[in-house]
């Protein structure tokens, strides 16, 4: 496959793997892609960018030297996107990761999504305590400096708010972007102490079945976690991508429950009460419960489902030339690792296997891609992930059929990006 084949009838293309221009994932490894790329602004169809091979100004004068803390290029100013919070309650609300501008699988700490229930507390770690009590042989309190002396583990995990993608259940949002619709997911390397180590130090009593985790924010937000999870892979996370956890992520320490809805990974963790039964906090009764069409509500819906998303091309982008594009995105599952990602360019009628570009870690984002030739015709781009447990990402219709539209939590549905003849990409429903 070379550029000389541009304009060839794609139905005769030997590397075609699915209809409407999807090519073999091997193409990405064996040939350079068309240079058109994606434009956020005006189309440049028909224009060739000028090539300037003069020595640039920055090669003719020394730049500034080292600095105590790094900064972004003035030409790469990615930002989180905040929603409209309640003006009477400014500490609430969320901000979303700019998924369409990120590559790889790790979310930079400054761009990790946020969700706060009473703002970010300004915690001095010297005054922060972690208490473990309740159904334990010996209630304990831990200081931050002491916790730093424990053996730690480092794991790469996604974190997703269970409200992520909830807007898709309403319909609408033609102007939605990957960020505005799905930006409540991020991925980082989390370093900390297995919670089981600290619980065992306190000593669990036979009746212990749950833990209640409470943060030191102004809402003292709490969640109940089954002891099985707490003893399995829950972490007391102290570091995020190598640096102390950021204040908006729970500095100096947070609970981290891999693969589970983000709200359970209580930030600014200060209290663990080991109990027989769940505590029925506000955020596990009034909120974070999934009301079904029959008006019963699912409670303690912890794992996040298998899910994927094309991040480029995506909403508000524009394909600018009839050429081959690298369609790329992210996939993840709370039930294990990602085994397969398929992509469709015809709204789900035919599918081709995407290349998984990254490591396929448990409960972590993977990056996928597949080459796609846009011939100027309308297209609907979708991705569909399968995880190591065999779960397959469902369509929006299937999610609505199963759980209705009252509920706004835990929506893993396939995202459809429509591409029109002008190359404009929008959120569509098919």
């Amino acid at each position, binding site marked *: 496959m070379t550029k000389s084949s541009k304009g060839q009838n794609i139905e005769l293309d030997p590397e075609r793997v699915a209809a409407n221009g999807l090519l073999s994932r091997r193409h990405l490894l064996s040939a350079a892609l068309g240079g058109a790329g994606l434009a956020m602004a005006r189309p440049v169809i028909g224009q060739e960018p000028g090539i300037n091979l003069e020595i640039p100004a920055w090669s003719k004068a020394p730049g500034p030297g080292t600095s105590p803390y790094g900064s972004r290029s003035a030409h790469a100013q990615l930002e989180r996107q905040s929603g409209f919070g*309640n003006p*009477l*309650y400014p*500490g*609430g609300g969320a901000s979303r990761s700019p998924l369409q501008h990120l590559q790889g699988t790790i979310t930079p700490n400054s761009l990790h999504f946020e969700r706060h*229930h*009473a703002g970010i507390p300004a915690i001095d770690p010297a005054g922060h305590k972690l*208490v*473990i*009590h309740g159904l334990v042989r*010996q*209630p*304990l*309190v*831990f*200081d931050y*400096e*002491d*916790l*730093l*002396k*424990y*053996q730690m583990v480092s794991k790469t995990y996604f974190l997703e708010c269970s409200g992520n993608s909830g807007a898709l259940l309403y319909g609408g949002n033609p102007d939605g972007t990957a960020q505005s619709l799905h930006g409540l997911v991020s991925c980082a390397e989390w370093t900390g102490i297995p919670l089981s*180590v*600290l619980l065992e*130090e*306190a000593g669990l009593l036979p009746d212990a079945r749950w833990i*209640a985790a*409470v943060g030191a924010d*102004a*809402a*003292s*937000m*709490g969640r109940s976690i*089954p002891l*099985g*999870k707490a003893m399995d892979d829950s972490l007391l996370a102290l570091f995020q991508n190598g640096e102390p956890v950021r204040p908006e992520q729970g500095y100096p320490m947070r609970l981290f429950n891999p693969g589970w809805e983000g709200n359970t990974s209580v930030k600014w963790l200060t*209290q663990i*009460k080991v*109990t027989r*039964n*769940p*505590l*029925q*906090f*506000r955020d596990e*009764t*009034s909120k974070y*419960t999934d*009301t079904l069409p029959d*008006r*019963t*509500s*699912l*409670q*303690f*819906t*912890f*794992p996040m489902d298998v899910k994927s998303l094309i991040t480029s091309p995506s909403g508000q982008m524009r394909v600018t030339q009839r050429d081959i594009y690298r369609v790329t995105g992210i996939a993840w599952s709370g039930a294990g690792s990602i085994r397969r990602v398929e992509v469709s360019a015809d709204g789900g009628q035919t599918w081709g296997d995407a290349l998984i570009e990254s490591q396929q870690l448990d409960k972590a984002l993977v990056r996928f891609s597949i080459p796609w030739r846009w011939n100027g015709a309308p297209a609907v781009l979708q991705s569909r992930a399968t995880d190591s447990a065999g779960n397959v990402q469902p369509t929006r219709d299937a999610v609505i059929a199963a759980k209705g539209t*009252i509920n706004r939590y835990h929506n893993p549905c396939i995202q459809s990006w429509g591409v029109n003849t002008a190359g404009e990409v929008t959120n569509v429903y098919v």
Partner: protein
Amino acid sequence: MYTFRRMLKASTLAACSAAVLVSTAQEQVKLGQAITEVSLAEFNLIAEPSGTGFPAGSGTAQQGRTIFENRCALCHGSNGEGNSDATVLVGGNMQSAETPLRTVGSYWPYASTVFDFIRRAMPANAPKSLTDEETYQVAAYVLYLNGLVAEDEIMNAQTLPQVRMPNAEGFIDRSHIQ
């Protein structure tokens, strides 16, 4: 082990917080300091459905009305009508033909959560500023606005957790799916 722990304490207190201390699986550090449940009386704000964790004191809706007007009505309205779906406290019917409005009265399965949440998180602009007595009074008022207790019914550690919530049977526990 004891020697190891003492060594850790002694060495790390001497201004070497960056020291890398090695322990083996057999010799995990144990640096939690023993405390008693009694010492957590102020710290622990968890009020459980069983009644465990509720403080001494009591209050009625009658007593709570003025506090609610002064401290809560800005967001929740004088009668709990709220200024948004996120702040409305009363009304709704889980069996309504249209999408049900989910409030304390129509949705919340446990009365204990009303007390627990007010004590830990409300008023939003000054959480934990109410006394235990005031918290009982405001919780009683919210339950009264929903028609769940009488205006003069005394809410305390015994009575409040026993208030029957209309949607108590409306939830399905999915915690076995992990």
